[in-house]
Protein backbone atom coordinates (compact mmCIF):
# COMPACT_ATOMS: atom_id res chain seq x y z
CA UNK A 1 0.00 0.00 0.00
CA UNK A 2 1.50 3.36 -1.02
CA UNK A 3 1.76 6.12 1.53
CA UNK A 4 -0.68 8.23 -0.45
CA UNK A 5 -3.27 5.46 -0.53
CA UNK A 6 -2.69 4.74 3.13
CA UNK A 7 -3.31 8.38 4.09
CA UNK A 8 -6.34 8.59 1.84
CA UNK A 9 -7.85 5.46 3.40
CA UNK A 10 -7.11 6.53 6.97
CA UNK A 11 -8.88 9.80 6.26
CA UNK A 12 -11.75 7.82 4.78
CA UNK A 13 -12.11 5.68 7.90
CA UNK A 14 -12.33 8.85 9.99
CA UNK A 15 -14.98 10.37 7.75
CA UNK A 16 -16.92 7.09 7.68
CA UNK A 17 -16.87 6.98 11.48
CA UNK A 18 -18.35 10.47 11.50
CA UNK A 19 -20.96 9.49 8.96
CA UNK A 20 -22.34 6.44 10.72
CA UNK A 21 -22.20 8.11 14.13
CA UNK A 22 -24.44 10.80 12.64
CA UNK A 23 -26.80 8.13 11.34
CA UNK A 24 -26.89 6.38 14.73
CA UNK A 25 -27.48 9.67 16.50
CA UNK A 26 -30.23 10.55 13.99
CA UNK A 27 -31.89 7.14 14.35
CA UNK A 28 -31.50 7.00 18.11
CA UNK A 29 -30.41 3.40 17.65
CA UNK A 30 -27.46 1.39 16.45
CA UNK A 31 -24.49 -0.72 17.39
CA UNK A 32 -21.84 1.92 17.94
CA UNK A 33 -18.93 0.00 19.49
CA UNK A 34 -18.80 -2.86 17.00
CA UNK A 35 -19.20 -0.55 14.00
CA UNK A 36 -16.20 1.41 15.24
CA UNK A 37 -14.15 -1.77 15.69
CA UNK A 38 -14.82 -3.12 12.18
CA UNK A 39 -14.91 0.02 10.02
CA UNK A 40 -11.20 -0.23 9.18
CA UNK A 41 -11.66 -3.85 8.05
CA UNK A 42 -14.65 -2.89 5.88
CA UNK A 43 -12.83 0.06 4.35
CA UNK A 44 -9.91 -2.14 3.32
CA UNK A 45 -12.26 -4.82 1.97
CA UNK A 46 -14.26 -2.41 -0.18
CA UNK A 47 -11.30 -0.34 -1.40
CA UNK A 48 -8.42 -2.81 -1.70
CA UNK A 49 -9.77 -6.35 -1.85
CA UNK A 50 -13.30 -7.02 -3.06
CA UNK A 51 -13.87 -7.24 -6.78
CA UNK A 52 -17.20 -5.46 -6.62
CA UNK A 53 -18.62 -2.08 -7.51
CA UNK A 54 -22.05 -0.53 -8.00
CA UNK A 55 -21.74 -1.42 -11.69
CA UNK A 56 -20.99 -5.10 -10.99
CA UNK A 57 -23.36 -5.61 -8.09
CA UNK A 58 -25.26 -8.33 -9.98
CA UNK A 59 -22.32 -9.82 -11.87
CA UNK A 60 -22.13 -13.58 -11.30
CA UNK A 61 -18.36 -13.39 -10.78
CA UNK A 62 -18.37 -10.52 -8.29
CA UNK A 63 -16.72 -11.22 -4.98
CA UNK A 64 -19.22 -11.81 -2.19
CA UNK A 65 -19.15 -10.16 1.22
CA UNK A 66 -21.53 -11.50 3.86
CA UNK A 67 -21.60 -9.68 7.17
CA UNK A 68 -22.28 -12.28 9.81
CA UNK A 69 -21.99 -9.80 12.68
CA UNK A 70 -25.00 -8.05 11.21
CA UNK A 71 -25.45 -5.71 14.17
CA UNK A 72 -22.54 -3.61 12.92
CA UNK A 73 -24.61 -2.75 9.87
CA UNK A 74 -24.11 1.00 10.31
CA UNK A 75 -20.44 0.65 9.32
CA UNK A 76 -21.42 -1.42 6.29
CA UNK A 77 -24.10 1.04 5.17
CA UNK A 78 -21.62 3.92 5.46
CA UNK A 79 -19.00 2.09 3.36
CA UNK A 80 -21.53 1.08 0.71
CA UNK A 81 -22.88 4.63 0.45
CA UNK A 82 -19.37 6.01 0.14
CA UNK A 83 -18.62 3.51 -2.64
CA UNK A 84 -21.72 4.72 -4.49
CA UNK A 85 -24.05 1.77 -4.04
CA UNK A 86 -26.82 4.14 -2.94
CA UNK A 87 -27.21 7.83 -2.11
CA UNK A 88 -25.43 8.86 1.04
CA UNK A 89 -28.57 10.68 2.23
CA UNK A 90 -30.30 7.28 2.58
CA UNK A 91 -28.29 6.77 5.76
CA UNK A 92 -30.53 9.26 7.51
CA UNK A 93 -33.45 6.84 7.11
CA UNK A 94 -31.70 4.22 9.28
CA UNK A 95 -34.31 2.30 11.32
CA UNK A 96 -37.05 4.72 10.22
CA UNK A 97 -40.61 3.60 9.51
CA UNK A 98 -40.72 1.82 6.12
CA UNK A 99 -37.01 2.36 5.46
CA UNK A 100 -35.02 -0.33 3.65
CA UNK A 101 -32.17 0.47 6.02
CA UNK A 102 -33.08 -1.96 8.79
CA UNK A 103 -30.93 -2.30 11.89
CA UNK A 104 -29.40 -5.48 10.47
CA UNK A 105 -28.42 -6.12 6.83
CA UNK A 106 -31.15 -6.91 4.31
CA UNK A 107 -31.06 -7.50 0.58
CA UNK A 108 -33.41 -4.59 0.10
CA UNK A 109 -30.27 -2.47 0.27
CA UNK A 110 -28.19 -2.44 -2.89
CA UNK A 111 -24.89 -4.23 -2.37
CA UNK A 112 -26.02 -6.46 0.48
CA UNK A 113 -25.84 -10.15 -0.34
CA UNK A 114 -27.79 -11.83 2.46
CA UNK A 115 -30.14 -10.96 5.29
CA UNK A 116 -28.15 -11.48 8.46
CA UNK A 117 -28.29 -10.40 12.06
CA UNK A 118 -28.91 -13.61 13.95
CA UNK A 119 -25.39 -14.67 14.85
CA UNK A 120 -23.79 -17.83 13.55
CA UNK A 121 -25.42 -17.61 10.11
CA UNK A 122 -22.92 -15.82 7.89
CA UNK A 123 -20.20 -18.44 7.87
CA UNK A 124 -22.46 -21.36 6.82
CA UNK A 125 -23.94 -19.23 4.02
CA UNK A 126 -20.44 -18.14 2.99
CA UNK A 127 -19.35 -21.79 2.92
CA UNK A 128 -22.28 -22.62 0.63
CA UNK A 129 -21.48 -19.66 -1.60
CA UNK A 130 -17.80 -20.57 -1.82
CA UNK A 131 -18.72 -24.19 -2.49
CA UNK A 132 -21.05 -22.99 -5.24
CA UNK A 133 -18.12 -21.14 -6.86
CA UNK A 134 -16.00 -24.30 -6.68
CA UNK A 135 -18.73 -26.50 -8.14
CA UNK A 136 -19.28 -24.05 -10.99
CA UNK A 137 -15.57 -23.44 -11.53
CA UNK A 138 -16.05 -19.70 -11.01
CA UNK A 139 -13.15 -17.51 -9.83
CA UNK A 140 -14.83 -15.29 -7.27
CA UNK A 141 -13.90 -15.09 -3.60
CA UNK A 142 -16.19 -15.06 -0.58
CA UNK A 143 -15.60 -13.06 2.58
CA UNK A 144 -17.51 -13.01 5.83
CA UNK A 145 -17.04 -10.96 8.99
CA UNK A 146 -17.77 -12.42 12.40
CA UNK A 147 -17.54 -11.09 15.92
CA UNK A 148 -15.48 -12.85 18.55
CA UNK A 149 -18.48 -13.21 20.86
CA UNK A 150 -20.26 -14.81 17.93
CA UNK A 151 -17.77 -17.67 17.96
CA UNK A 152 -19.79 -19.23 20.78
CA UNK A 153 -22.46 -20.12 18.21
CA UNK A 154 -22.06 -23.81 17.39
CA UNK A 155 -23.17 -23.39 13.78
CA UNK A 156 -19.85 -21.60 13.08
CA UNK A 157 -17.95 -24.72 13.96
CA UNK A 158 -20.18 -26.90 11.79
CA UNK A 159 -19.34 -24.54 8.94
CA UNK A 160 -15.64 -24.40 9.84
CA UNK A 161 -15.50 -28.18 9.56
CA UNK A 162 -17.27 -28.15 6.19
CA UNK A 163 -15.07 -25.37 4.75
CA UNK A 164 -11.92 -27.38 5.41
CA UNK A 165 -13.56 -30.62 4.23
CA UNK A 166 -14.37 -29.00 0.89
CA UNK A 167 -10.97 -27.25 0.69
CA UNK A 168 -12.56 -23.85 0.14
CA UNK A 169 -9.47 -21.77 -0.61
CA UNK A 170 -11.77 -19.08 -2.04
CA UNK A 171 -13.24 -18.42 1.42
CA UNK A 172 -11.91 -15.91 3.95
CA UNK A 173 -13.51 -15.42 7.34
CA UNK A 174 -12.52 -12.32 9.26
CA UNK A 175 -12.95 -12.29 13.02
CA UNK A 176 -13.38 -8.82 14.51
CA UNK A 177 -11.66 -9.73 17.78
CA UNK A 178 -12.58 -6.73 19.90
CA UNK A 179 -12.74 -8.73 23.12
CA UNK A 180 -16.07 -7.35 24.29
CA UNK A 181 -19.67 -8.39 23.91
CA UNK A 182 -22.93 -7.10 25.28
CA UNK A 183 -22.41 -8.55 28.76
CA UNK A 184 -18.75 -7.63 29.10
CA UNK A 185 -15.34 -9.09 28.23
CA UNK A 186 -15.67 -12.06 25.88
CA UNK A 187 -13.16 -14.00 27.93
CA UNK A 188 -15.48 -13.73 30.91
CA UNK A 189 -18.66 -14.59 29.01
CA UNK A 190 -17.33 -17.51 26.96
CA UNK A 191 -13.64 -17.59 26.33
CA UNK A 192 -12.41 -17.63 22.75
CA UNK A 193 -8.86 -18.36 23.92
CA UNK A 194 -6.61 -20.13 21.46
CA UNK A 195 -8.84 -19.07 18.57
CA UNK A 196 -5.98 -19.39 16.09
CA UNK A 197 -5.18 -22.87 17.32
CA UNK A 198 -8.84 -23.82 17.15
CA UNK A 199 -9.12 -22.78 13.49
CA UNK A 200 -5.76 -24.38 12.65
CA UNK A 201 -6.99 -27.61 14.22
CA UNK A 202 -10.10 -27.39 12.03
CA UNK A 203 -7.83 -27.26 8.97
CA UNK A 204 -7.80 -23.54 8.23
CA UNK A 205 -4.93 -21.25 7.30
CA UNK A 206 -4.69 -18.63 10.03
CA UNK A 207 -3.44 -15.05 9.91
CA UNK A 208 -3.40 -12.69 12.85
CA UNK A 209 -3.30 -8.94 12.24
CA UNK A 210 -3.85 -5.63 13.94
CA UNK A 211 -7.37 -4.89 12.77
CA UNK A 212 -6.70 -1.16 12.62
CA UNK A 213 -3.49 -1.45 10.60
CA UNK A 214 -4.72 -0.85 7.07
CA UNK A 215 -1.68 -2.15 5.13
CA UNK A 216 -1.52 -5.27 7.30
CA UNK A 217 -5.25 -5.86 6.78
CA UNK A 218 -4.90 -5.34 3.03
CA UNK A 219 -2.05 -7.84 2.82
CA UNK A 220 -3.86 -10.46 4.93
CA UNK A 221 -7.17 -10.10 3.09
CA UNK A 222 -5.73 -10.02 -0.39
CA UNK A 223 -3.72 -13.20 -0.01
CA UNK A 224 -5.24 -16.59 -0.71
CA UNK A 225 -4.09 -19.58 1.27
CA UNK A 226 -2.03 -22.24 -0.34
CA UNK A 227 -2.69 -25.92 0.25
CA UNK A 228 -6.40 -25.62 -0.58
CA UNK A 229 -7.36 -24.31 2.82
CA UNK A 230 -9.93 -21.71 3.84
CA UNK A 231 -8.41 -18.67 5.50
CA UNK A 232 -9.31 -17.00 8.75
CA UNK A 233 -7.98 -13.52 9.43
CA UNK A 234 -8.10 -12.86 13.16
CA UNK A 235 -8.15 -9.09 13.41
CA UNK A 236 -7.36 -7.76 16.87
CA UNK A 237 -9.45 -4.64 17.26
CA UNK A 238 -10.64 -2.15 19.85
CA UNK A 239 -14.35 -1.88 20.40
CA UNK A 240 -15.27 1.78 20.08
CA UNK A 241 -12.00 2.49 18.25
CA UNK A 242 -11.37 6.16 17.53
CA UNK A 243 -13.56 7.73 20.21
CA UNK A 244 -11.68 8.00 23.51
CA UNK A 245 -14.60 7.50 25.86
CA UNK A 246 -16.08 4.62 23.84
CA UNK A 247 -12.93 2.53 23.49
CA UNK A 248 -13.05 -0.79 25.37
CA UNK A 249 -16.32 0.06 27.12
CA UNK A 250 -18.86 -2.70 26.64
CA UNK A 251 -21.88 -0.47 27.29
CA UNK A 252 -21.18 1.17 23.92
CA UNK A 253 -22.12 -2.16 22.27
CA UNK A 254 -25.42 -0.58 21.39
CA UNK A 255 -25.05 2.69 23.19
CA UNK A 256 -26.37 5.77 21.39
CA UNK A 257 -24.48 9.00 22.10
CA UNK A 258 -26.24 11.90 23.75
CA UNK A 259 -25.96 15.26 22.03
CA UNK A 260 -22.92 16.19 24.15
CA UNK A 261 -21.28 12.82 23.60
CA UNK A 262 -21.96 13.04 19.90
CA UNK A 263 -20.37 16.48 19.69
CA UNK A 264 -17.32 15.29 21.59
CA UNK A 265 -16.98 12.23 19.35
CA UNK A 266 -17.19 14.35 16.20
CA UNK A 267 -14.71 16.81 17.67
CA UNK A 268 -12.23 13.97 18.35
CA UNK A 269 -12.62 12.67 14.79
CA UNK A 270 -12.25 16.17 13.35
CA UNK A 271 -9.07 16.54 15.38
CA UNK A 272 -7.69 13.32 13.92
CA UNK A 273 -8.68 14.44 10.43
CA UNK A 274 -6.93 17.81 10.94
CA UNK A 275 -3.79 16.00 12.08
CA UNK A 276 -3.83 14.09 8.81
CA UNK A 277 -4.08 17.40 6.98
CA UNK A 278 -7.59 16.66 5.84
CA UNK A 279 -10.80 18.65 5.84
CA UNK A 280 -13.44 17.80 8.42
Amino acid at each position, binding site marked *: MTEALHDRLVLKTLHLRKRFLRAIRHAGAGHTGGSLSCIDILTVLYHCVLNISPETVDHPDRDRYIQSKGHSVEALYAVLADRGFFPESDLDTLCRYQSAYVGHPTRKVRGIEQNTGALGHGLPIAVGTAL*GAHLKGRPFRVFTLLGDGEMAEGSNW*EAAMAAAHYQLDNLTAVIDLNGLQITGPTDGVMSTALLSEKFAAFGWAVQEVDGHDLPALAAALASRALQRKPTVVIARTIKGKGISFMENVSSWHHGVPSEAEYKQAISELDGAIAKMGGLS
Partner: protein
Amino acid sequence: MSAPAPSVFSQESLSCLEALGLIKGRPNLEVFAETLLELARMDPLILAVTSDSRGSGKLGPFGKALPRQIVEVGIAEQNLVGVSAGLAATGFKVFATSPACFLAARALEQIKNDVAYSDNAVVLVGISAGVSYGALGSTHHSLHDLAALRAIHNIEIFCPADNFEADVIVRHAAGSKKPAYIRFGKAPLHDLPKKGQPMLPTKARVLVEGSGIGFIATGETVIHAVLAAQTIRERTGQQPRVLSMPCLRPLDTTSILETAARCDVILSVEEHMIHGGLGEACAAVLAQNGDHQCRLKIIGIPDEETVTGSQADIFRHYGISREGLLFAAQPYLSA
Protein backbone atom coordinates in the same frame (compact mmCIF):
# COMPACT_ATOMS: atom_id res chain seq x y z
CA MET B 1 -40.63 -65.80 13.72
CA SER B 2 -42.41 -62.83 15.18
CA ALA B 3 -45.89 -61.94 14.04
CA PRO B 4 -46.12 -59.17 11.44
CA ALA B 5 -46.69 -55.74 12.88
CA PRO B 6 -50.37 -54.84 12.85
CA SER B 7 -51.35 -52.70 9.88
CA VAL B 8 -53.25 -49.49 10.19
CA PHE B 9 -55.66 -51.06 7.70
CA SER B 10 -58.20 -53.43 9.22
CA GLN B 11 -59.58 -56.32 7.19
CA GLU B 12 -62.59 -54.16 6.38
CA SER B 13 -60.27 -51.35 5.25
CA LEU B 14 -58.38 -53.72 2.99
CA SER B 15 -61.63 -54.93 1.44
CA CYS B 16 -62.69 -51.34 0.96
CA LEU B 17 -59.38 -50.49 -0.74
CA GLU B 18 -59.86 -53.42 -3.06
CA ALA B 19 -63.44 -52.49 -3.84
CA LEU B 20 -62.33 -48.97 -4.70
CA GLY B 21 -59.50 -50.32 -6.84
CA LEU B 22 -56.89 -48.31 -4.91
CA ILE B 23 -53.56 -49.95 -5.46
CA LYS B 24 -50.67 -49.91 -3.03
CA GLY B 25 -47.87 -47.78 -4.38
CA ARG B 26 -44.43 -46.95 -3.01
CA PRO B 27 -43.18 -44.72 -0.22
CA ASN B 28 -43.27 -41.09 -1.33
CA LEU B 29 -39.59 -40.77 -0.49
CA GLU B 30 -38.76 -43.20 -3.28
CA VAL B 31 -40.83 -41.17 -5.71
CA PHE B 32 -39.07 -38.00 -4.55
CA ALA B 33 -35.63 -39.52 -5.11
CA GLU B 34 -36.58 -40.95 -8.50
CA THR B 35 -38.20 -37.75 -9.77
CA LEU B 36 -35.30 -35.68 -8.50
CA LEU B 37 -32.82 -37.92 -10.28
CA GLU B 38 -34.78 -37.63 -13.51
CA LEU B 39 -34.85 -33.83 -13.25
CA ALA B 40 -31.20 -33.55 -12.17
CA ARG B 41 -30.01 -35.60 -15.13
CA MET B 42 -31.44 -32.86 -17.35
CA ASP B 43 -30.37 -29.93 -15.18
CA PRO B 44 -26.82 -29.86 -13.78
CA LEU B 45 -27.80 -26.97 -11.51
CA ILE B 46 -29.99 -29.26 -9.40
CA LEU B 47 -28.16 -30.34 -6.23
CA ALA B 48 -29.13 -32.70 -3.45
CA VAL B 49 -27.59 -31.65 -0.14
CA THR B 50 -27.68 -34.24 2.60
CA SER B 51 -26.89 -34.37 6.31
CA ASP B 52 -25.80 -38.00 6.59
CA SER B 53 -29.30 -38.64 5.23
CA ARG B 54 -28.46 -40.09 1.83
CA GLY B 55 -29.76 -43.55 2.78
CA SER B 56 -32.83 -42.45 4.71
CA GLY B 57 -33.63 -39.99 1.91
CA LYS B 58 -33.41 -42.81 -0.67
CA LEU B 59 -30.75 -40.78 -2.47
CA GLY B 60 -28.24 -43.61 -2.83
CA PRO B 61 -29.00 -44.11 -6.54
CA PHE B 62 -28.89 -40.33 -7.07
CA GLY B 63 -25.43 -40.16 -5.49
CA LYS B 64 -24.17 -43.02 -7.64
CA ALA B 65 -25.61 -41.63 -10.86
CA LEU B 66 -24.73 -37.96 -10.30
CA PRO B 67 -21.88 -37.79 -7.77
CA ARG B 68 -21.11 -34.19 -8.74
CA GLN B 69 -24.65 -33.11 -7.91
CA ILE B 70 -24.80 -34.34 -4.34
CA VAL B 71 -23.22 -32.50 -1.42
CA GLU B 72 -22.76 -34.03 2.03
CA VAL B 73 -22.53 -31.80 5.09
CA GLY B 74 -22.51 -34.45 7.79
CA ILE B 75 -24.73 -34.51 10.84
CA ALA B 76 -25.09 -30.75 11.00
CA GLU B 77 -28.60 -29.56 10.20
CA GLN B 78 -27.94 -25.88 10.81
CA ASN B 79 -25.04 -26.00 8.40
CA LEU B 80 -27.16 -28.02 5.96
CA VAL B 81 -29.59 -25.16 5.61
CA GLY B 82 -27.01 -22.34 5.71
CA VAL B 83 -24.82 -24.02 3.10
CA SER B 84 -27.89 -24.74 0.97
CA ALA B 85 -28.84 -21.05 1.10
CA GLY B 86 -25.34 -20.10 -0.05
CA LEU B 87 -25.44 -22.64 -2.87
CA ALA B 88 -28.84 -21.33 -3.96
CA ALA B 89 -27.41 -17.80 -3.98
CA THR B 90 -24.88 -18.91 -6.59
CA GLY B 91 -27.61 -20.21 -8.88
CA PHE B 92 -28.09 -23.82 -7.86
CA LYS B 93 -31.51 -25.39 -7.30
CA VAL B 94 -30.94 -27.05 -3.97
CA PHE B 95 -32.93 -29.85 -2.36
CA ALA B 96 -31.76 -29.93 1.28
CA THR B 97 -32.63 -33.25 2.84
CA SER B 98 -32.86 -34.18 6.49
CA PRO B 99 -35.27 -35.97 8.80
CA ALA B 100 -38.16 -33.57 9.31
CA CYS B 101 -37.83 -33.77 13.09
CA PHE B 102 -34.35 -32.22 12.96
CA LEU B 103 -34.75 -30.02 9.90
CA ALA B 104 -37.78 -28.13 11.17
CA ALA B 105 -36.52 -27.83 14.73
CA ARG B 106 -32.75 -27.57 15.03
CA ALA B 107 -32.42 -25.66 11.75
CA LEU B 108 -35.57 -23.58 12.18
CA GLU B 109 -33.68 -20.29 12.53
CA GLN B 110 -31.70 -21.05 9.38
CA ILE B 111 -34.96 -21.81 7.56
CA LYS B 112 -36.47 -18.56 8.84
CA ASN B 113 -33.50 -16.31 8.07
CA ASP B 114 -31.23 -17.89 5.48
CA VAL B 115 -33.96 -19.39 3.28
CA ALA B 116 -37.27 -17.59 3.82
CA TYR B 117 -36.20 -14.08 4.88
CA SER B 118 -33.21 -13.93 2.53
CA ASP B 119 -35.41 -15.45 -0.20
CA ASN B 120 -32.99 -18.19 -1.24
CA ALA B 121 -35.19 -20.66 -3.11
CA VAL B 122 -34.03 -23.79 -1.32
CA VAL B 123 -36.38 -26.79 -1.29
CA LEU B 124 -36.30 -28.25 2.21
CA VAL B 125 -37.13 -31.93 2.17
CA GLY B 126 -38.34 -33.21 5.53
CA ILE B 127 -38.00 -36.97 5.39
CA SER B 128 -39.69 -39.55 7.61
CA ALA B 129 -42.05 -36.85 8.80
CA GLY B 130 -44.86 -37.01 11.33
CA VAL B 131 -44.64 -40.26 13.28
CA SER B 132 -42.97 -42.22 10.47
CA TYR B 133 -40.18 -43.19 12.85
CA GLY B 134 -42.86 -44.61 15.17
CA ALA B 135 -41.34 -46.34 18.17
CA LEU B 136 -38.10 -44.37 17.95
CA GLY B 137 -40.00 -41.85 20.00
CA SER B 138 -40.70 -38.17 20.20
CA THR B 139 -37.12 -37.07 19.45
CA HIS B 140 -37.72 -38.49 15.99
CA HIS B 141 -41.28 -37.31 15.47
CA SER B 142 -42.10 -34.08 13.66
CA LEU B 143 -45.54 -33.11 14.86
CA HIS B 144 -44.62 -29.44 15.02
CA ASP B 145 -43.17 -28.78 11.57
CA LEU B 146 -46.31 -27.52 9.85
CA ALA B 147 -47.09 -25.19 12.75
CA ALA B 148 -43.54 -23.86 12.89
CA LEU B 149 -43.28 -23.24 9.17
CA ARG B 150 -46.80 -21.80 8.83
CA ALA B 151 -45.61 -19.04 11.15
CA ILE B 152 -42.73 -18.14 8.85
CA HIS B 153 -43.32 -15.84 5.90
CA ASN B 154 -42.21 -16.77 2.37
CA ILE B 155 -42.15 -20.52 2.26
CA GLU B 156 -44.52 -22.88 0.48
CA ILE B 157 -45.48 -25.95 2.53
CA PHE B 158 -46.35 -29.27 0.91
CA CYS B 159 -47.53 -32.54 2.33
CA PRO B 160 -48.22 -34.98 -0.51
CA ALA B 161 -50.66 -37.84 0.07
CA ASP B 162 -49.73 -40.34 -2.62
CA ASN B 163 -47.07 -41.02 -5.23
CA PHE B 164 -48.86 -38.92 -7.83
CA GLU B 165 -49.00 -35.85 -5.58
CA ALA B 166 -45.36 -36.36 -4.60
CA ASP B 167 -44.22 -36.40 -8.22
CA VAL B 168 -46.23 -33.29 -9.14
CA ILE B 169 -44.96 -31.39 -6.09
CA VAL B 170 -41.29 -32.27 -6.59
CA ARG B 171 -41.51 -31.08 -10.21
CA HIS B 172 -43.26 -27.90 -9.10
CA ALA B 173 -40.61 -27.17 -6.45
CA ALA B 174 -37.77 -27.83 -8.89
CA GLY B 175 -39.15 -25.19 -11.24
CA SER B 176 -40.17 -22.67 -8.59
CA LYS B 177 -38.26 -19.59 -7.51
CA LYS B 178 -39.83 -19.69 -4.04
CA PRO B 179 -38.53 -21.41 -0.92
CA ALA B 180 -40.44 -24.60 -0.17
CA TYR B 181 -40.78 -27.34 2.42
CA ILE B 182 -41.95 -30.80 1.40
CA ARG B 183 -42.83 -33.40 3.98
CA PHE B 184 -42.47 -37.08 3.18
CA GLY B 185 -43.27 -40.20 5.17
CA LYS B 186 -41.73 -43.64 4.94
CA ALA B 187 -44.74 -45.87 4.44
CA PRO B 188 -45.83 -47.23 1.06
CA LEU B 189 -48.92 -45.28 0.06
CA HIS B 190 -52.04 -46.28 -1.80
CA ASP B 191 -52.93 -44.39 -4.90
CA LEU B 192 -55.82 -42.06 -4.22
CA PRO B 193 -58.85 -41.80 -6.49
CA LYS B 194 -58.36 -39.63 -9.58
CA LYS B 195 -54.71 -40.52 -9.94
CA GLY B 196 -53.33 -38.94 -13.07
CA GLN B 197 -55.92 -36.21 -13.40
CA PRO B 198 -54.48 -32.72 -13.65
CA MET B 199 -53.37 -31.39 -10.30
CA LEU B 200 -52.33 -27.89 -9.32
CA PRO B 201 -49.74 -28.31 -6.58
CA THR B 202 -51.04 -25.43 -4.50
CA LYS B 203 -54.71 -26.41 -4.75
CA ALA B 204 -56.83 -28.96 -2.95
CA ARG B 205 -57.85 -32.08 -4.84
CA VAL B 206 -61.51 -33.04 -4.59
CA LEU B 207 -61.09 -36.80 -4.42
CA VAL B 208 -64.75 -37.59 -3.84
CA GLU B 209 -67.55 -35.13 -4.45
CA GLY B 210 -70.24 -35.12 -1.79
CA SER B 211 -72.02 -33.24 0.97
CA GLY B 212 -73.11 -33.46 4.59
CA ILE B 213 -69.77 -34.48 5.99
CA GLY B 214 -66.56 -33.09 4.54
CA PHE B 215 -63.19 -34.66 5.12
CA ILE B 216 -60.20 -32.37 4.56
CA ALA B 217 -57.04 -34.37 5.07
CA THR B 218 -53.37 -34.06 4.26
CA GLY B 219 -50.43 -36.37 3.69
CA GLU B 220 -50.50 -39.98 4.75
CA THR B 221 -53.87 -39.61 6.51
CA VAL B 222 -55.87 -38.91 3.35
CA ILE B 223 -56.41 -42.55 2.42
CA HIS B 224 -58.21 -43.14 5.73
CA ALA B 225 -60.62 -40.31 4.98
CA VAL B 226 -61.33 -41.87 1.58
CA LEU B 227 -62.09 -45.22 3.21
CA ALA B 228 -64.25 -43.70 5.94
CA ALA B 229 -66.23 -41.74 3.34
CA GLN B 230 -66.79 -44.86 1.28
CA THR B 231 -68.02 -46.78 4.32
CA ILE B 232 -70.37 -43.95 5.30
CA ARG B 233 -71.82 -43.99 1.79
CA GLU B 234 -72.30 -47.77 1.93
CA ARG B 235 -73.95 -47.65 5.32
CA THR B 236 -76.10 -44.55 5.02
CA GLY B 237 -76.32 -43.70 1.35
CA GLN B 238 -74.93 -40.30 2.27
CA GLN B 239 -71.79 -39.42 0.28
CA PRO B 240 -69.24 -37.32 2.19
CA ARG B 241 -66.96 -34.93 0.35
CA VAL B 242 -63.24 -35.77 0.53
CA LEU B 243 -60.45 -33.31 -0.14
CA SER B 244 -56.74 -33.93 -0.17
CA MET B 245 -54.90 -30.79 0.89
CA PRO B 246 -51.35 -31.25 -0.40
CA CYS B 247 -50.37 -27.63 0.19
CA LEU B 248 -50.69 -25.78 3.49
CA ARG B 249 -49.27 -22.56 2.13
CA PRO B 250 -50.54 -21.01 0.03
CA LEU B 251 -53.72 -22.41 1.55
CA ASP B 252 -56.57 -23.13 -0.82
CA THR B 253 -59.19 -21.24 1.15
CA THR B 254 -61.67 -21.41 -1.72
CA SER B 255 -61.85 -25.19 -1.52
CA ILE B 256 -62.28 -25.08 2.26
CA LEU B 257 -65.14 -22.62 1.95
CA GLU B 258 -66.74 -24.60 -0.89
CA THR B 259 -66.69 -27.62 1.38
CA ALA B 260 -68.17 -25.58 4.23
CA ALA B 261 -70.98 -24.44 1.93
CA ARG B 262 -71.91 -28.04 1.11
CA CYS B 263 -71.37 -29.69 4.48
CA ASP B 264 -72.68 -29.53 8.05
CA VAL B 265 -69.31 -30.49 9.44
CA ILE B 266 -65.72 -30.68 8.28
CA LEU B 267 -63.45 -33.30 9.78
CA SER B 268 -59.85 -32.26 9.27
CA VAL B 269 -57.26 -35.02 9.49
CA GLU B 270 -53.49 -34.68 9.79
CA GLU B 271 -50.37 -36.47 11.03
CA HIS B 272 -49.45 -33.48 13.17
CA MET B 273 -50.29 -32.06 16.53
CA ILE B 274 -53.77 -30.58 16.59
CA HIS B 275 -52.21 -27.16 17.22
CA GLY B 276 -51.01 -25.09 14.31
CA GLY B 277 -51.53 -27.52 11.45
CA LEU B 278 -54.20 -28.15 8.85
CA GLY B 279 -57.09 -28.24 11.32
CA GLU B 280 -56.38 -24.87 12.85
CA ALA B 281 -55.72 -23.45 9.40
CA CYS B 282 -59.23 -24.58 8.42
CA ALA B 283 -60.62 -23.15 11.66
CA ALA B 284 -59.16 -19.73 10.88
CA VAL B 285 -60.67 -19.80 7.39
CA LEU B 286 -64.09 -20.94 8.59
CA ALA B 287 -64.23 -18.49 11.47
CA GLN B 288 -63.33 -15.49 9.36
CA ASN B 289 -65.04 -16.14 6.06
CA GLY B 290 -68.24 -17.10 4.39
CA ASP B 291 -71.87 -17.49 5.14
CA HIS B 292 -71.95 -21.03 6.42
CA GLN B 293 -73.14 -23.04 9.40
CA CYS B 294 -70.39 -25.62 9.06
CA ARG B 295 -68.77 -27.00 12.20
CA LEU B 296 -65.25 -28.33 12.42
CA LYS B 297 -63.66 -31.29 14.18
CA ILE B 298 -59.86 -31.43 14.19
CA ILE B 299 -58.36 -34.90 14.15
CA GLY B 300 -54.63 -35.28 14.69
CA ILE B 301 -52.16 -36.02 17.42
CA PRO B 302 -53.41 -34.53 20.71
CA ASP B 303 -51.40 -32.30 23.01
CA GLU B 304 -49.88 -35.07 25.10
CA GLU B 305 -46.75 -37.23 25.15
CA THR B 306 -47.23 -39.41 22.12
CA VAL B 307 -47.96 -43.07 22.74
CA THR B 308 -45.21 -45.58 21.93
CA GLY B 309 -45.64 -47.73 18.86
CA SER B 310 -45.29 -47.97 15.13
CA GLN B 311 -46.79 -45.33 12.87
CA ALA B 312 -49.75 -47.69 12.41
CA ASP B 313 -50.12 -48.13 16.18
CA ILE B 314 -50.01 -44.37 16.72
CA PHE B 315 -52.50 -43.70 13.93
CA ARG B 316 -54.95 -46.24 15.32
CA HIS B 317 -54.45 -45.02 18.90
CA TYR B 318 -55.43 -41.49 17.94
CA GLY B 319 -58.21 -42.44 15.55
CA ILE B 320 -56.40 -41.76 12.30
CA SER B 321 -57.87 -44.79 10.57
CA ARG B 322 -61.04 -45.68 8.75
CA GLU B 323 -62.55 -46.93 12.02
CA GLY B 324 -61.39 -43.93 14.01
CA LEU B 325 -62.79 -41.50 11.48
CA LEU B 326 -66.11 -43.36 11.35
CA PHE B 327 -66.30 -42.99 15.13
CA ALA B 328 -65.50 -39.29 14.87
CA ALA B 329 -68.15 -38.84 12.16
CA GLN B 330 -70.83 -40.77 14.02
CA PRO B 331 -72.47 -37.79 15.77
CA TYR B 332 -72.91 -36.05 12.42
CA LEU B 333 -74.52 -38.89 10.49
CA SER B 334 -78.22 -38.40 9.82
CA ALA B 335 -80.33 -41.03 11.51
